[in-house]
Structure formats: C-alpha cells, structure tokens
C-alpha cells in the first residue's frame, strides 16, 4: 500500500524551499460555525495563499486549547460535526483542490472510537495527508504511526519550549511532514511571542532534523507572521482566524473575505521578507 510518489506535504515543502518561501498554514475548526461552510473556508484559505491546511476535528474536551478554539469546538459540536463528517469535508475539498496538503488536527478519542484501521483507510480515501493528534506523543503512538504511514498519512508531532534535548531527538526521529513547534507555554490563543527565543530553539533543532520546522501559538497578524517567518519554515495561524470566524458566526457569508484579508496580509508579509 506504499505510495511511490511523495506525500503532498513533502512536495509542498520541497517547492517552498526551492522558492525560498515560508509556508503559511491556517488552522480552522471543521464545522465552525456550521458544517456547510467548512469546505468554502478551506478554498478561501488557499486562494489567500495558504500552503497547508490544518483542519481541526472538534472535540468535547480540548484540553490544550484556549477559549477561542474551545468555543469553536462547541459551535461545531452543536451542529453534530463528528470525525466522519470532517473526513467527508476533506473529500469534498479534494474535488476542486488536489494539491493543497490537508492535516487533520485534534485529539485522540474520536479516532480511538472510530478505530485506527477504519480511520486510516477512510482518511486516505478522502485525501488527508497528515495527522496531528495533540494528546498522542510519539511514545504513545505505537503501531498507529506505522499504520498511518501505510495509508500515506504522515504523523506530525509537537515540540515545545519545555521539551528536553533527548526527547526532541526522539520526536524528530519519529516525525514526518513537518514539526509543529509550540512557541509558548500555554494553550492556543495565548498572548506574547518572543521571536528571538523561538529562533534560538529552532536552530538547536535544525542540528537534529531536516524536517521543516513550523511554529504555532501567538501568530496573529502580518508582523508576528513575518517575525517568525524569518526563523521558521512555516507559520501556523489558528486562534486569530477562529476568532474572526466567531465574530461573524451570525453572518457566515462574510467569513471567506475576512479570512482572505488576514491571511493575505500574512502572505504578503512573509513573501516581502522572502524577496528582500
């Protein structure tokens, strides 16, 4: 069942590297504010310059998320959005976009309940490229990472400022696609970000891995994106987008333009840096 062609994620990062550009990776919670809008939002992200999409699988107990994404989960769950539906959304997205990598991000229990085999098979069929399970560190991934790999799904792992050097080496060894560096202690949507400190951490990590290093937590606008873009291979923006979706939850038709506006600003800031 091994694919001969490289995964979409690897292809995308190879292209970006050749162009000297930084990946822009938006996160949105599937089903927020209602399931009917998610695929349209994904396309809007791509039109605004997204290189990879992280699609959040809503969960009742998002322990690593701040209030913004907690509420997004609640809105999505109120409409009955389940993992099964999220997979169907990816399949629908693929009808118009066969190139943009999609990473499912969420918590383990929905996958555990669906069954790992069933999930891996369906995710592959629907066109998912990577899986980031917040509460499944490599040592608990066990056979699942191999199972996912057999279905062309890359396992994306997190690294944190508190991760020891020994752990970082082990995580880099298991990681595929890219590494998600959590720039802050805290939950998603937390406050300030120190780009210099992040840069220092990333240069240490570059000694032990060739995987692209993408940074999330604390990126809210063009300026923070550019600052992190100078030291990272990709910037991940979640709460800033989800916050805008929340503000317009009663007027979903206005959301794609709002997403394009903030992502466009980030894209421009990142690319300005790339050419200068």
């Amino acid at each position, binding site marked *: 069942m091994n694919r001969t062609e490289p995964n979409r994620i690897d292809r995308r990062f190879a292209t970006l590297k050749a162009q000297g550009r930084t990946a822009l990776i938006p996160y949105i919670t599937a089903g927020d504010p209602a399931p009917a809008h998610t695929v349209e939002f994904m396309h809007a992200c791509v039109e605004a310059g997204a290189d990879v999409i992280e699609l959040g699988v809503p*969960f*009742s*107990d*998002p*322990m*690593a*998320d*701040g*209030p913004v994404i*907690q509420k997004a989960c*609640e809105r999505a*769950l109120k409409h009955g959005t*389940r*993992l*099964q539906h999220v997979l169907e959304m990816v399949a629908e997205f693929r009808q118009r976009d066969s190139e943009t990598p999609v990473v499912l991000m969420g*918590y*383990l*229990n*929905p*996958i*555990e*309940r*669906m069954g790992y085999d069933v999930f891996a098979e369906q995710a592959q069929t629907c066109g998912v490229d990577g899986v980031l399970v*917040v*509460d*499944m*560190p490599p*040592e*608990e991934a066990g056979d699942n990472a191999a199972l996912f790999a057999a279905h062309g799904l890359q396992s994306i*792992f*997190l*690294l*944190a*400022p*508190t*991760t*020891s050097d020994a*752990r970082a080496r082990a*995580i880099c060894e298991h990681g595929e696609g890219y590494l998600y560096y*959590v720039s802050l*202690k*805290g*939950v998603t949507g*937390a406050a300030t970000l120190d780009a210099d400190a992040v840069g220092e951490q990333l240069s240490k990590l570059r000694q032990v891995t060739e995987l692209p290093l993408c940074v999330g937590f604390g990126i809210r606008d063009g300026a923070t994106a550019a600052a992190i873009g100078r030291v990272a291979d990709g910037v991940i923006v979640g709460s800033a987008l989800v916050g805008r979706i929340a503000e317009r939850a009663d007027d979903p038709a206005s959301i794609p333009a709002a997403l394009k506006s903030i992502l466009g600003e980030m894209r421009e800031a990142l690319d300005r840096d790339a050419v200068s």
Partner: protein
Amino acid sequence: MSRFHDLTQLPDARGHFGPYGGRFVSETLSFALEELENIYASLKNDPEFQAEFDRDLKHYVGRPSPLYHAERWSREIGGAQIWLKREDLNHTGAHKVNNTIGQALLAKKSGKPRVIAETGAGQHGVATATVAARLGLKCEIYMGAEDVQRQKLNVYRMHLLGAKVVPVESGSRTLKDAMNEALRDWVTNVDDTFYIIGTVAGPHPYPMLVRDFSAVVGREARRQSLEQIGRLPDALVACVGGGSNAMGLFYPFVEDDDVAMYGVEAGGEGVATGRHAAPLTANAPRGVLHGNRTYLMSDEGGQVADTQSISAGLDYPGVGPEHALWKDVGRVRYVAADDNEVLAAFRELTLVEGIMPALESAHALAHAKKLAGEMSPDQHIVVNLSGRGDKDIHTVAELDGIEF
C-alpha cells in the same frame, strides 16, 4: 502464590496497566511529568520521606482511622457483619487528604510555590487548600460551575483556607471540565506550579502515586481486620468515581485472593437509562481522556458523554486505568448504585448508626447492604466510609423541600 501477583508489578515503566493508562498529553506537559516521575522515584523508597509522610498522617490527619463495627445496622440487615473504615474522621472529613499530604510533600521537594487542583464535590479542593495553607503555598482550585452551586459550603471553606476557587463554565460544567481547565493552567504555568490531581487517573505517574499515597487506608484496614475480626474480611466495598478511595482500600488486599472486592459506581437515574456515571458497569468503550486510556463514556463519534449523578464527586465519565484493568482480569466486580438507593443508604446509616456519610460513600453503603443480605452473620464486609456527609446536607434538604 496469589493468582493476582502480577497486578502488584504495575504500572510498567511507561505507566501502562495492561492496555490502559499511559501518558497521553500535549508535548508541553511531558517535561513536567518526567520531572514529577523522577522526583517521586527518588523519594518513593526514601525512609526519611516516608517517615515525614507517616508523621503528617498521624499528627495532622489523625491516622489511623478506626475500623468501626456497625453492629446495629448489621443486625437490622440480618446478614454479614459490616465494618466501616472511618475515613470520614480524617482532618478535612474525607480520604482525599491522604493523597494531598503526599503530593504536597512532593510539591515542597520540587520547590514550586504554587499548587492547583480540580475538584468535584469539593473534598479534594478542600484537602488541597488545607495542605497549601499549612505549607504556605499559593493555591487555585478549579471547580465546575454546576458543582460550585451544588457545594457552596466547600467553596466557602476553600475561600477561608486562602485558596482561590475558579468556577469552570465550559462543557458540562462538572468535574471533567474542571480537570480540563486545571490542565490548561498547568500547561501555562508549568514552571512554578505543581498540579495535585485528586484521583487515580490522569497521565502517568499520577495514577501510581495517588494509589501509593491512598493505600494507607487499605494497609490499616488489613491490619485492623486481623486484630478486630481475627482474620481478613470476606469482602471489601468502596465507591468509584475516578477511584482513589477504592484503590486505597483495595490495593493492599490485591494478593488476598479470598477477599472479594466490589467497586460501586454512580448509577445516577439508573444504568439502563444512560443517565449515569458508571463507565465500568455499563461497559463503556475504551477511550482516551485526561492523559490516560481507560473505559470512557463517549458517543459514537468519540465525544465525551455528559454524566449524571447525585454526587458531584463521582460525576466523571472515565475511571482510573488500574480499575479498568482490574475489571478485565476479574479482580474486582464493578457494580452501580442509583441515586434513590444512595439516598436511602444515606438516611439509613445516619438514623441507625448516627454516622452521616458523604453521598459518594453512600454508594458503597447501598451495595454493602445488598451484599450483606446475601451473606451469613459470620461473614465480614469492610466498607470504605470515604467521607462525611455534612457537605451534602444542602442537597438532601433540597430534595426534602427544605430551604435554609
């Protein structure tokens, strides 16, 4: 040798109890858990640390707690003799303090100036606030907003003890949501904060160390049984939410194959109605929440289910991973008592023995009554009377239509 000897060798090095347990946490917490694991490993067999723990239990908590023969109640039931392990007589009124004393010593050794905890009924919150006051640690307690309403007395107690109680408005506004919020706090303040988890759940090493600190209950009960009954009891009964008081009583008896064990979950409106908090009894599917794999009540999409129980302290959709394994291997039988049975037991023990149990503990009493009725007067049951019922007077009065 006991056919359950292997159970005493767990968890394995990575915190697994067979297929359960583990450390399913976001990366930011891995460091803190490794640090805690190392601190505990260095102190676990340190005689000085153990002596300090024992000293605190004796002089501050008031241990050993008595093993009391409920003669009148036993006679009325007309079956086995019921003995109550009186954890309700501990300082702060419940078994929870055994564990918080232990973890507070670990917090002290780790040099962290701030402790946090989640609480359901408020007993663990009170026990944490108590040890924090004694050690001069800053203390914040997360409590579901619904439980803050149900347990006003304990909320005010914590306030008097100098702790800040944070009502949690997210999700179902009960214990599981309080634990989510405590984990979020910890992930943010991991440098200066020690998380005192109140039950045998959570990520490794918590289920192990909470068990070890709680096991003083069973060690005493075992010794007292030999002294007062002249032999080991025939059965042990304890309530199970996360499962710390049951674990504390059961663990030292694990290799006593002839001692039957019953863990009593919260049957709520009845297990058949689906409105309960009894994942083991209801054979809930395997799931992952709060850092460990266990039996977990969730819907078909893996969303954690809302639970229902008259007692805030048992209102939890999961259960400690070691209990999950003990169910699978048949060491313990897990059953449920519903809200009505629990209230009846609460009233009965109060009237017949003059002991007002916590509604949590009344679950164990309700099942012990059934069990005793099927046994003979020369048999003996030890029940963990895990806490006193003062905190529940408000709940019971409300059901009686009485307003203060």
